[in-house]
């Protein structure tokens, strides 16, 4: 993504970009502030660090009491177990693949449906637009656990239980409202006059959108899609209620399923969790600039 939304939509030459007033790191921070931040950082990061440590410890070190922080033997055995089982691919690796498919397809679906809808809500005068938008948003108010039983019953009727398609549809249904709301903010930022100009040039409205507005929306679409992807990737409640077989299950219920036997292979759980967390981290890192832009866009008045 070479062009940020800001550059892409600015019409004025050399607009002044005054950087937000920010205190330079370290200086001006009181000891108390530093201490509090340090405590907070430790509390927040410890579980993640512990997870990573456990994933590379040998089993006897995992269960050692007192816990070994530094002097343990490093092994990648657990990571191998995540992907390979005796006689071929492990069940976990299948669930990871399922997660990739379900998250990817549902995000693509939500984007394809949500972006044009957001454009339409931004550009056209629609009857009771505010009410419609509020209704769309209201579908997000409900926690999934409230609707999972009715959806389970409906899915059973139509044969979507224990299928990837079922998960894809439900995740897309949850992501479309989010996509519409977030993308509407981005579309609002792109002056409608580009499309007006394109239509006078001789293009139809759809061509004008496709040729001149859509390219300017790409950073916004990327940011929105990452949010949708992370939601679908992390989703647990629907996944555990609506799927049961190993060939369909996504990673979150599969990892959870590792816990609960007579013995728990914590090394494997930790390794699977690390593998599960990595894509989210990578994506969030790649689009971190747009994530912040996406969150703050609507708040800034230009």
């Amino acid at each position, binding site marked *: 993504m070479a062009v940020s939304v800001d*550059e892409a939509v600015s*019409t004025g030459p050399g607009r002044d970009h005054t950087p937000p007033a920010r205190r330079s790191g370290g200086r001006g921070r009181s000891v108390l502030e530093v201490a509090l931040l340090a405590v907070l950082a430790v509390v927040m990061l410890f579980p993640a660090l512990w997870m990573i440590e456990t994933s590379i410890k040998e089993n006897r070190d995992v269960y050692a009491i007192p816990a070994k922080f530094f002097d343990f033997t490093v092994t990648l055995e657990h990571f191998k177990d995540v992907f390979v089982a005796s006689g071929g691919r492990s069940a976990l690796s299948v669930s990871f693949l399922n997660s990739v498919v379900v998250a990817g397809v549902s995000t693509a679906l939500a984007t394809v449906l949500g972006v044009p809808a957001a454009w339409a809500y931004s550009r056209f005068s629609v009857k009771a637009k505010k009410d419609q938008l509020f209704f769309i948003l209201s579908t997000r108010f409900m926690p999934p656990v409230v609707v999972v039983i009715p959806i389970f019953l409906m899915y059973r009727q139509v044969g979507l239980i224990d299928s990837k398609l079922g998960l894809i549809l439900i995740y897309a249904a949850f992501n479309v409202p989010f996509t519409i709301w977030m993308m509407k903010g981005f579309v609002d930022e792109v002056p409608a006059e580009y499309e*007006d100009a*394109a239509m006078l040039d001789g293009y139809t409205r759809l061509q004008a959108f496709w040729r001149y507005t859509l390219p300017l929306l790409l950073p916004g679409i990327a940011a929105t899609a990452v949010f949708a992807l992370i939601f679908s990737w992390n989703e647990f409640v629907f996944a555990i209620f609506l799927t049961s077989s190993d060939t369909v299950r996504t990673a979150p219920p599969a990892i959870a399923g590792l816990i609960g036997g007579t013995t728990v292979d914590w090394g494997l759980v930790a390794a699977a969790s690390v593998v599960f967390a990595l894509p989210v981290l990578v994506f969030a890192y790649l689009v971190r600039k747009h994530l912040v832009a996406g969150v703050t866009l609507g708040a800034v008045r230009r």
Partner: protein
Amino acid sequence: MGTVAVQGLRKSFGKVQALDGVTLDVPDGSFFVVLGPSGAGKTTTLRAIAGLEKLDAGSVHLDGRDATGDAPAERDLAMVFQSYALYPRLTAYENIASPLRARRCSSSEIAAAVERMSSLLHIERLLQRRPAQMSGGEMQRVALARALVRRPRAFLMDEPLTNLDLKLRVEMRTELTRIHRSLGATFIYVTNDQVEALSMADRVAVLKDGKVQQVGTPAEVYERPANQWVAGFVGSPQISLLPCHAEGDRLVGAEGWTLPRPRWSTAEDGRPLVLGLRAEDLSVEQRGDASLPGELYGLEPLGDRTVVDVQVGTEILKVKARPTFTGTPGERLHVTVDLDRAHLFDAGTGLALSEAGR
């Protein structure tokens, strides 16, 4: 060919009636200026002609054919937007080429047309730049080139000079007039700047609150404003308006002054009137009996002339004087009125009195 006729345009945005029955006839090849303050509905009128605005009522005829429901692309018009609306990711060259690409012209045709435009508007060195790398004046030229690169039925311009600095605006005024003359095409030009309207237009339509107040040549609009509002909006310095009424062969002001009644005025005695006097029809030199006593209020030396503010009763008259005129505030003086060029309006309706006898 390039006639544009709109009939009874109505459009409301929520509770705001942006267009309230706008009817205009734009002859082929004319430089037609739509003049009005902000919020008068000028831009909405232009967008309605372009097909960018869905109308509540009314029709748009292009070259005599009803085009009310046509998509913008079908209308064969070109437009310059106030914000220029240059495509930010494209170079100036591609921006100018866009209307031709939409019409699937060959790349050699496009290259030739863009080159012709860039030399006409002196923007050859800008062609590889993107809008973000151009100044306001440069973007304005590119936007103009994008409109002019085709030979559409008519050119629509939405306050294209408003965002330029004064010097550039004056230059571009001359240039636009020159381009219009050389193309002989129909221009519909929206502005809130009455100087632009008076200096460039063949015909001016004055708009206020979504209603057409007057249509005419610049001279007609200036010399014979249809109502008090047009008189006040057109002309700089602003016309001075004095409440008065007729009594026999005199006009008697609310402040007690009297003037001989203009021969052409037909109002009956006692009817409340407003006397409109332009600065150039007033003089601080006393001659004749058509004069008003007043007090010097202030001076605005403008180089080529001095505008003298004279207080008559509670009203301030703007009087044009020689640049050498001097005086001290508070000084008593007489303002001579050229009554043959004065305007009378009905105080109730604001309409100009019949000037049949003038």
